[in-house]
């Protein structure tokens, strides 16, 4: 443990897993001779009440699935107006409600917390800032795990499910980057089934074959990760046989989705999610569909307070969700698409999301741009952009107050050095405009993606 005067005592395992009595499976995952050099410990923090709330949430999702989305949003809106300070003065009719964006959340996140929400044991998550200025989102243990029932319902459509019980590994979150927190954990909701987060980067393992041996031995039922990590998993030729794969954080190209399905012999879902409300939609075989009935989607005219008709292309706005610390009303996602309704289901078409960006290096290899996000995160920049030119050099731009060029330069230099690319030139470009509420692509490259 590093010395730090502000440090507070960390949780122990009984606090990490209040809903699990027997933690032997977690210890096994951590202490396995082929396990990676785990650098963190994490638990779901769910007690038995929290587990029950998640089951209740799953029942609610099922129930809502059979009702009209309009009646859902009207009830949701009515409650939000009476329970959320930010919405208290909103007009009585949802149709007249104004839109909101990430700047609103950044300015006063406390205004979006329900009055009825308990403030005990809240958790805070800051976005990486890959697609705009970092944002802090408040939630609790139940919300943090609510993606599990959402995913279960998605998988159910193809007769699939999540593993349950100690001795199984329900989820392996795969990363491939220089540095990230890695841990072995378990889910009380899944009756003690394992959840591991591993980094495939060779530096994180004791021996080159360990990653393959460890993962094959655990046989995780669901692989989650971003397209770059899944590409790396394929390149490492680890012949896993998961029941399903979920790609998120960046758009998965259809070509790569097909390759992954062929290689891993399982359905691959490209999940569109945001920290602000987690899962929104999933893409399967080229068709993108709304994932949860507790979200209400609309298309808004860019820069205008106007809801567009079905089929029109515009900015996706999300209302609803299950986070009592952030109920959303017409939240502008910064992503664009069309919506089509068909037999009670909602489909997203021509979706323009975030494409994965990696910066190729002159002598081969590439930089995972998330390492820049991670290195720049402590500087809390309002916005930044790193653009790679055709000559491999980088142009760095940032917004917000203060002269941070030196610190930014140091952070970027540090990442380049770790990739053995310290000679790669980078210069500072024009400052980015003041916060506009729109996402700015943090990473762009002139090379093909």
């Amino acid at each position, binding site marked *: 443990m590093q010395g*730090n005067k502000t440090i507070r005592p*960390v949780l122990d395992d009984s606090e990490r897993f209040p809903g699990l009595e027997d933690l032997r499976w977690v210890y096994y995952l951590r202490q396995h001779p082929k396990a990676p050099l785990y650098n963190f410990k994490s638990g779901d923090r769910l007690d038995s009440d929290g587990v029950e709330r998640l089951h209740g949430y799953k029942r609610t999702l099922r129930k809502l699935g059979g009702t009209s989305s309009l009646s859902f949003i009207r009830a949701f809106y009515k409650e939000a107006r009476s329970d959320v300070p930010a919405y208290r003065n909103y007009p009585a009719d949802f149709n007249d409600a104004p839109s909101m964006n990430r700047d609103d959340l950044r300015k006063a996140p406390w205004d979006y917390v329900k009055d009825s929400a308990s403030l005990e044991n*809240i958790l805070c998550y800051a976005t990486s800032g890959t697609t705009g200025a970092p944002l802090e989102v408040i939630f609790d243990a139940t919300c943090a795990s609510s993606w599990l029932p959402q995913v279960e319902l998605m998988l159910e459509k193809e007769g699939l499910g999540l593993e349950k019980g100690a001795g199984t590994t329900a989820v392996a979150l795969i990363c491939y980057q220089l540095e990230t927190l890695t841990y072995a954990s378990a889910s009380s909701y899944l009756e003690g089934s394992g959840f591991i987060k591993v980094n495939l980067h060779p530096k994180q393992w004791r021996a080159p074959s360990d990653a393959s041996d460890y993962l094959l031995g655990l046989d995780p039922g669901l692989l989650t990760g971003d397209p770059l990590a899944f590409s790396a998993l394929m390149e490492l030729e680890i012949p896993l046989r998961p029941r399903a794969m979920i790609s998120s954080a960046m758009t998965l190209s259809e070509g790569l989705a097909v390759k992954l399905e062929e290689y891993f012999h399982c359905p691959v879902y490209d999940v569109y999610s945001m920290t602000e409300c987690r899962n929104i939609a999933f893409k399967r075989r080229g068709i993108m569909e709304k994932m949860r009935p507790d979200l209400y989607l609309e298309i808004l005219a860019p820069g205008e307070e106007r809801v567009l008709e079905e089929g029109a292309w515009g900015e996706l706005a999300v209302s609803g969700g299950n986070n009592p610390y952030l109920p959303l009303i017409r939240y502008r996602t910064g992503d664009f698409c069309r919506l089509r309704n068909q037999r009670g289901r909602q489909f997203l078409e021509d979706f323009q999301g975030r494409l994965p960006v990696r910066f190729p290096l002159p002598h081969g290899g590439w930089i995972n741009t998330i390492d820049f996000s991670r290195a720049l995160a402590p500087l809390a920049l309002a916005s930044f952009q790193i653009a790679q030119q055709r000559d491999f050099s980088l142009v760095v731009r940032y917004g917000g107050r203060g002269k941070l060029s030196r610190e930014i330069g140091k952070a970027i230099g540090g990442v380049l050095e770790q990739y053995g690319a310290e000679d790669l030139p980078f210069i500072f470009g024009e400052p980015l405009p003041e916060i506009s509420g729109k996402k700015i692509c943090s990473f762009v490259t002139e090379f093909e993606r």
Partner: protein
Amino acid sequence: MRVPQNGEQTGPQLEDLLHHLSECPGVFLETPLFVSSASEGGVHSLALIFDLFLLQNVKIPIGLKRKLETSWESPQLSERCWRGWQLLAYLFSHSWFYEKKVLAKGFARGLDHMHKLTDIVEASAFIANPARREELCRLALFWCGLRPQGESPEQAEDRLKALDTLFRKDIEAKSSRNRSRAEEIRRKIQEARAREAANTYARE
């Protein structure tokens, strides 16, 4: 905020009522008899109110009569409150309310409102202070389901909202509650951040 009632009717000219209130004789603000000794004099509040109904030729509902009598015997109500009720008796003695049945309803609603309002505002201020005077006249009409002559329901509601002391107090209390809740959330976020930071450093 209260929504204007359907079927709300037009009452007297507001100016008439304001003028009437400004000419309130001092006797209506005298100390209620029940708190003063006989030698000091004072006014029998209950008699004053019953006289109003007689004067306006409106039958006082039994429930209202009982409520007033019980209140008179109860030591719970303050002198300030009774002064406010005495003032109501004067305000509703305006000739417009003669034989108007809405008087009983308006007076009954006014008792509850004045009970709370006189905790904040002295009865005398409703005569001396023009804004408070207008507030009481508008409230009296509102309690009766009326609005001032020549005003639309929206205008009447807006103007009353702007003057309504209890409404303003309520908003202030709410916003103060919101502020302290926001402070608490801010503090909890900082704690959560510190916890996360601690976790981050504690790489085991």
